[in-house]
């Protein structure tokens, strides 16, 4: 219930508007620092932040972990696979040696493949999020601030991009692009496939950020501080990047932090459909795609990657949510 909101607003005690006589001589607490303080006070966000960090470190340190664990992600243990092609033993072949068990059929170690999958997934997701955010910011700012026909064109392109069925195009673009760049005998290097995926995400993903930024800019451009800058003779660049951009960081940061888990899911989905990363490169989507059909006979194979990806995405989402609350305390509570 928010009637107290009415009450407090009427009483003018909105937390951000409480008049405080600033203490002389101190450096002011910037909005960023305030947000950081709020974030630190949010236990859920901090815990999820640590989990997020843990996953990132795990992914970065994958080769080191391989060294310690002693098993490579491509090594096959078919002697531990029964003639029905499932791992011998209990719960998907979980053992001291194979912490998360083995894959059916090929008999590779699931744990180390998950660690490497994490690496792939995080890399793709963060790069894609970075790229789409950058594209979205530039196009959104330009479209929102300049308005007119430029806005019309960019808005139409956004509508157009939204009308294209992403998966179908991804499915078509991947082989087309690979065939264009690699000869028939060349193995498509994993980095190239990853690059194409990132490109695909960027191609279709910038619209969200652009729309968001555009909306923000439209509401900001009428603000009087922008007019003040114009009245002082500020040029376009100054207004866009000195005046407007600092005010966009909050929504951009939030949308970035929520885009990362989105692309983790998206990457897994593409790989799930066989468009993205392909075997033998370790990947969440590929693993889950295969494991889905083993749901009955080898549920461990579904559960381990499923839970890891769920935890990863959850940690990112919780952190992103905490970030949103911290940056914009009025938004959700």
């Amino acid at each position, binding site marked *: 219930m928010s009637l107290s909101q009415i009450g407090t607003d009427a009483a003018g005690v909105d937390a951000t*508007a409480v*008049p*405080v006589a*600033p203490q002389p001589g101190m450096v002011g607490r910037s909005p960023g620092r305030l947000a950081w303080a709020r974030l630190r006070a949010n236990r859920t966000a901090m815990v999820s932040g640590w989990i997020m960090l843990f996953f990132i470190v795990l992914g970065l340190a994958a080769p080191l972990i391989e060294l310690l664990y002693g098993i490579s992600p491509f090594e096959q243990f078919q002697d531990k696979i029964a003639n029905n092609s499932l791992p011998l033993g209990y719960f998907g072949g979980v053992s001291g040696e194979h912490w998360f068990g083995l894959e059916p059929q090929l008999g590779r170690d699931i744990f180390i493949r998950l660690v490497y999958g994490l690496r792939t997934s995080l890399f793709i997701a963060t790069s894609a999020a970075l790229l789409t955010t950058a594209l979205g910011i530039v196009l959104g700012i330009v479209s929102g601030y300049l308005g007119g026909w430029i806005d019309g064109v960019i808005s139409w392109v956004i509508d157009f991009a939204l009308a294209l069925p992403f998966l179908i195009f991804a499915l078509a673009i991947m082989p087309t692009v690979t065939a264009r760049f690699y000869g028939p005998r060349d193995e498509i290097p994993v980095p190239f496939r990853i690059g194409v995926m990132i490109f695909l995400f960027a191609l279709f993903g910038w619209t969200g950020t652009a729309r968001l930024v555009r909306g923000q800019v439209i509401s900001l451009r009428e603000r009087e*501080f922008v007019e003040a800058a114009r009245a002082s*003779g500020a040029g376009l660049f*100054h207004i866009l990047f000195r005046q407007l951009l*600092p005010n966009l960081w909050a929504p951009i940061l939030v949308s970035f932090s929520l885009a990362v888990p989105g692309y983790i899911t998206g990457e897994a989905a593409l790989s799930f459909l066989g468009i993205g990363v392909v075997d033998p490169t370790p990947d969440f989507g590929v693993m889950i795609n295969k494991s889905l059909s083993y749901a009955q006979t080898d549920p461990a194979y579904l559960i381990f990657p499923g839970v890891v990806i769920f935890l990863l995405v959850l940690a990112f989402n919780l952190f992103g949510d905490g970030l949103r609350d911290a940056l914009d305390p009025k938004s959700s509570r």
Partner: protein
Amino acid sequence: MSEALLRVRGLTKHFAVRQGATGAKASVRAVDGLDFDVHAGETLGLVGESGCGKTTTGRMLVRLLEPTAGSIEFQGRDITTLGRRAMRPLRQDLQIIFQDPYSSLNPRHTVGKIVAMPLEVNGIKPAGGVKQRVQELLELVGLNPEHYNRFPHEFSGGQRQRIGIARALALRPKLIVADEPVSALDVSIQAQVVNLLRDLQRELDLAFVFIAHDLAIVRHFSRRVAVMYLGKVVEIGDRADIYERPRHPYTRALLSAVPDVAAFGEQRQRIRLTGDVPTPLNPPSGCRFRTRCWKAQDVCATEEPPLVAREGSAQQVACHFPEAVGVVNEHVSEVAA
């Protein structure tokens, strides 16, 4: 009087809008042919009800809006169509203060950065450094110079408005357009800011175009006052003329509608205007005030009254049937029914 600092002639602004189911183009005649001068060091008050075009006028004066027609001369130079670069040196002499102390300061910039912005934009490096200059300005507007590194959200509304004033002063302007600078503030704070502006005017020999809907505040701050109605100046003159001897029926009605504490206990002759201000999309023909005017006659609908001065006076009025000179709009002590 010396040469005018600002000469406005025939200033007009029409906004194109679409209306109705067909989206036919129409124009909002927000400002329709304004003429006035502002002299160095003086304040011209611009009053009127919402929608009368006073804010649009203010925005045009500092070139935030492009006029549809007319000319603006500043320091003898026509700035109506100057480009951004050509405008730059003049900008330093022509600044604006905004109404909303919350939206007029960039929440992500420190006070120092906000106040220094005009310097930065114009590439001005004051002697003694930017920081020193900013701190001087802060002191000038009654803020602690140590607040240089603080952020706007740490200040109250009145203090923020002071920051906005400091920013406007950064380039040492000759004319400031103050667009409702106190109307968003609490009553006890309004007086602080009005006093500050008066002090600054005295100290720095500033000219102001002071835009407000509050007649009492305008009276307090402006030597000359222009009353606007539906995009037009209906009456302009010295403070005493306008407040003591209003000649336009609208000015009279406006003045009589102000609930004045000082008038407590006295029975006043209230002029009750009926209805609302018509839409500027389709303003009444002839005299625009005629639809609400108790003196309106047929001629008012057909002929637009020009803004003319009474002989030997600076007071100009646009009315076919102005009040007789000498009728004092004092609170009339009549026995109530």
